[in-house]
């Protein structure tokens, strides 16, 4: 493959909204450096990172779709608003998935769908908080365990948020909301990992950590979050490498978690023969892949940090 050095012009990123200033000028802000000449490899890496963010957001959306469908079905859709996350996550998935493979919907559409997901997720947090507070004993361990799960809509909000980040990266792979793209993404993924680990930790606490493997989602992802956060603060190849490894472990955990949860379902009375109860009562099978989605975005963040030389 030949490497052609091209000056940074409108060609950086194949599409962007009409009327936007050239990316180079935008990238200049806050960095105080002259625009660098980019290699094709570097641009390819950026595009890959962008697509990976779409992929991660899509995995989050899929996890939310399946999880909210199961849980809201269990909740009998007693409030019609409970259909919203299913619709929103489906749209989010439908737009993130093709984008992950390079076939993007028009950016405004993508942006709108992702924005809606973020808003729906945020609204969900409100609904869930209300559901918890209106029960006897309000904000209590009992209701945190059994009322609407406090952190679950967070995953939808994250899916929407990261989807929007991916859209912005398509226009400008250097900055996100004014911050260096890679480091911003890393910091937000770290936050996302901590929140998701917290939710898993809460529900594993409800399960009394009866199985030693249940400590994995409250140890591996927080470590990854810590390393990712540190890598966001301090440019160091060593930290990035450690973060990369821990993120891959987190991704693996996201997959293994499905297996563990299926095992948990089988351990209930009647096992898979009693699926109409056990799929709903047992550990939520669609939940662990949210770690996979976040880990993918975290890896993309690291790639961006390298590609953008942050």
């Amino acid at each position: 493959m030949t490497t052609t050095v091209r000056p940074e012009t409108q060609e950086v990123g194949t599409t962007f909204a009409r009327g936007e200033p050239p990316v180079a000028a935008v990238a200049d802000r806050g960095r105080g450096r002259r625009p660098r000449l980019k290699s094709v490899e570097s641009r390819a890496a950026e595009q890959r990172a962008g697509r990976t963010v779409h992929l991660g957001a899509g995995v989050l959306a899929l996890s939310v779709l399946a999880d909210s469908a199961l849980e809201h079905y269990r909740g009998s859709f007693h409030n019609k608003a409970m259909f919203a996350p299913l619709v929103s996550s489906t749209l989010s998935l439908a737009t993130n998935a093709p984008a992950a493979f390079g076939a993007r919907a028009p950016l405004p559409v993508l942006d709108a769908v992702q924005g809606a997901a973020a808003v729906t997720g945020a609204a969900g947090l409100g609904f869930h908080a209300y559901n918890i507070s209106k029960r006897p004993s309000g904000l209590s361990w009992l209701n945190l365990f059994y009322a609407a799960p406090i952190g679950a809509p967070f995953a939808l909000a994250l899916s929407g948020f990261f989807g929007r980040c991916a859209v912005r990266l398509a226009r400008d792979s250097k900055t996100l909301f004014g911050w260096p793209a890679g480091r911003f993404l890393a910091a937000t993924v770290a936050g996302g990992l901590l929140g998701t680990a917290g939710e898993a930790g809460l529900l594993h606490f409800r399960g009394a950590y009866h199985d030693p493997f249940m400590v994995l989602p409250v140890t591996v992802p927080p470590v990854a979050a810590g390393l990712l956060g540190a890598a966001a603060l301090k440019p160091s190849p060593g930290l990035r490498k450690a973060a990369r490894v821990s993120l891959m472990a987190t991704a693996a955990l996201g997959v293994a978690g499905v297996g563990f949860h299926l095992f948990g379902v089988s351990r209930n009375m009647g096992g898979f023969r009693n699926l109409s109860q056990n799929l709903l009562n047992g550990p939520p099978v669609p939940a662990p892949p949210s770690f996979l989605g976040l880990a993918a975005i975290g890896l993309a963040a690291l790639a961006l940090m390298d590609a953008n030389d942050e």
Partner: protein
Amino acid sequence: MPESDDPLVTPRATGGRAPDVFRPGGWTPMRCYPENDEVDFAIVGSGAGGGTLACKLAEYGFSVVALDAGPYWRPLEDFASDEREQAKLYWTDERIVDGENPLQLGPNNSGKSVGGSTVHFAMVSLRFRPEWFKSRTTLGYGADWPLDWREMWDYYREVEEALTISGPVNYPWGPKRPRYPYRPHELNAPALVLAQGCEALGIAWTPTPIATVSAPRGQSPPCVYRGMCVIGCSTNAKQSVLVTWLPRALKAGAEIRDLAMVGRVEHDDAGRVTGVHYHREGRWRFQKAKNVVVAGYAIETPRLLLNSASGKFPHGLANSSGLVGKNLMVQANQAVWGLMDREIRSYKAPPSLALTEHWNYCDDGKDFFGGYAYMSQGPLPVVWSGVLASKRGLWGEPLLDQMENYNHQVGLKMVGEFMPQERNRVTLAEERDQYGLSVARVTYSWCDNDRRMIRHALGFMRQALEAVKARDIFDEANDTCHLNGTARMGDDPATSVVDADCRTWDIPNLWICDGSVFPTVGGVNPSLTIQAIACRTADRIRAMARRGEL
């Protein structure tokens, strides 16, 4: 061994093996002791007292044979989802009840199974209020226990761990206790109603600490919320003695003999017990033992001691105080019921998922001694129809109409501390049972304190239901639960039957380890306390053995 057996007819724990309750058709090896071998301990009854003690003593290296009149159930295969069928769990042999307030026995309080009444109990696992161990001295009624609550606090912990109690993260009353091993269960609708009522009245409530698991534990799956706890748990989520202490006991070398009705405890001329006569597989047999523990619960224990009367002990064994059979205490189990507009469907999940112990710890404004807790309820159809028919007096169309409101019914049921009264007692009746043994006569009358407590509780629970807008509220004014007191513990042989170590004063190698030993009954379900006492007794026995005092 017969291939297809009826556990009610053919003993299962024979020939070196006992049922493995966790594996359908499975067996676990069991050490068998020849009858002529003088085992260290022959324990009569394998329930909360006897089963726990059998486990602990076997684990401490003693040779133990536990004999139970009941069958050795395999819950996964034997337990049907049907009230009428499951009456097989209860003590249905003849007993006579009289007094001013004759007791209702059977499903209320008397099991006949290996694992005792814990096979059908509602799993509510509560600690005594510390002051109750010194009721007389600290609260001015009843009698003091010769036990220190701080010591019992540790034993409660041991039992809670052994039963993997699922309980709240923080318990609202009493001194600090360690966190329950598992988390509480989700509240069902009747429990939510209790909670709302308590909040409306400004008192604390809690998810009930309960002996069924909220997450997998060993081979027990988590509770499936089928709501049939008191007719037998068919999933083994319920942590009865049958699925907790007894498998451990077998592993530690204890022998369990099912369908073994002990009819008489034998003693020698020196006045020491020598073993037990028991009926099994069609004939009477004798097991030699260095020590005998009677753990048949508060009716069968005094009945056996009285039936073991002899020339040397004409008033029955261990009865120099004259108190064997006396001071029978049940607990008030009155309830208030109402109808909600919303669907409650109380048949789902364990009956008592929420409770309040407010009136156990608060003494303000009480015109009675003692305390009571109250909890949510979930009666199954036959039991509920009995409440509406026999207690509320409905029959014909009015009964059918009211029963149709089943899914809207909600209730609050108390567990209240009745006072010890010597006139409440177990004696021997003229009638004889199928083994030729004198049948028990159970005499019970409420005292004024009992009545005042009931009035207070019915009034308060009614308020709690009114506060949540229940309608058609009515009182279930006559119901009792549990059995205690008929071989009370004390520090004076003149006023008690056993000492703090559950050893009878009269006969040094005769012990009593069940609910009979309670001097007072408290306002909480007794099972946790019975098991804690058994754990303590095992420790004391081990200490005594080491010092050569056995």
